């Protein structure tokens, strides 16, 4: 195993029983996965547990990974399912996020920190399925095509849903901030 190996080469090594390859995949992806779960759940401790659970599932289910599949897409499918399994008791579509235990910034008095906190709360107030669309597309770096594969929908359907989810997030943000329009810095990619 080489550090220059692609994710897919590492995953092939995992299938071949090389557990050190899984360690390298963990090194590469555990931070991003943790942030996915943190933004989905708002709980740091749960996010660490679920991040570990995903990699244990990667090991257990390694024989189901197909060599022409992108590792990241497959990993996020496992993560998506792990989160659904966790929230099933609360019903996925309507589950409200758990209490936020994200560390508060030390300089909360600063305006941008307050805006960030408000934006986080608005994101957490969204239905989980819509929140996940924004998380996967904005934070996790997945292409719309990959999200479509993960969720089993057409790429253009993902784009329309992201567009709608963004509008819904803005409505929630404005309601929470008590003012129309954004106080966050403008601009776009």
């Amino acid at each position, binding site marked *: 195993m080489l550090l220059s190996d692609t994710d897919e080469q590492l995953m092939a090594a995992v299938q071949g029983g090389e557990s050190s390859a899984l360690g390298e995949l*963990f090194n590469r992806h555990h931070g991003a996965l943790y942030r996915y779960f943190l933004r989905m759940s708002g709980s740091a401790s749960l996010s660490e547990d679920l991040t570990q659970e995903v990699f244990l599932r990667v090991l257990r289910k390694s024989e189901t990974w197909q060599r022409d599949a992108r590792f990241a897409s497959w990993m996020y499918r496992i993560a998506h399912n792990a989160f659904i399994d966790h929230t099933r008791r609360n019903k996925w579509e309507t589950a409200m996020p758990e209490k936020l235990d994200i560390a508060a910034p030390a300089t909360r008095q600063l305006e941008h920190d307050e*805006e*960030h906190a408000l934006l986080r709360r608005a994101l957490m107030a969204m239905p989980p399925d819509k929140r996940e669309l924004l998380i996967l597309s904005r934070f996790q770096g997945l292409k719309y095509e990959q999200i479509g594969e993960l969720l089993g929908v057409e790429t253009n359907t993902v784009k329309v849903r992201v*567009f709608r989810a*963004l509008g819904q997030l803005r409505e929630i943000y404005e309601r929470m901030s008590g003012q129309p*329009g*954004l106080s*966050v810095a403008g*601009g776009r990619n």
Partner: protein
Amino acid sequence: MMTCQEFAVDIADTLAGSATPAARARAEAHFGECSSCRANAALWQALGDLPADAPSPALQVKFGRHLSGTPSAPR
């Protein structure tokens, strides 16, 4: 007059940086006319500015123990 919904795909592609020049031009022309979609685009940017949280270093250690089959240290 076209509705915002009809620009959804162009806007989503533009926000993600994957739009064709023509799609981006259509989205940006719409942003010029629509304060709501302009605000949504600003929100997309703001999302990207949220600080990235990191897991505790203990997570890596804990997973390494799982991987090596070494039992976790007692708490």
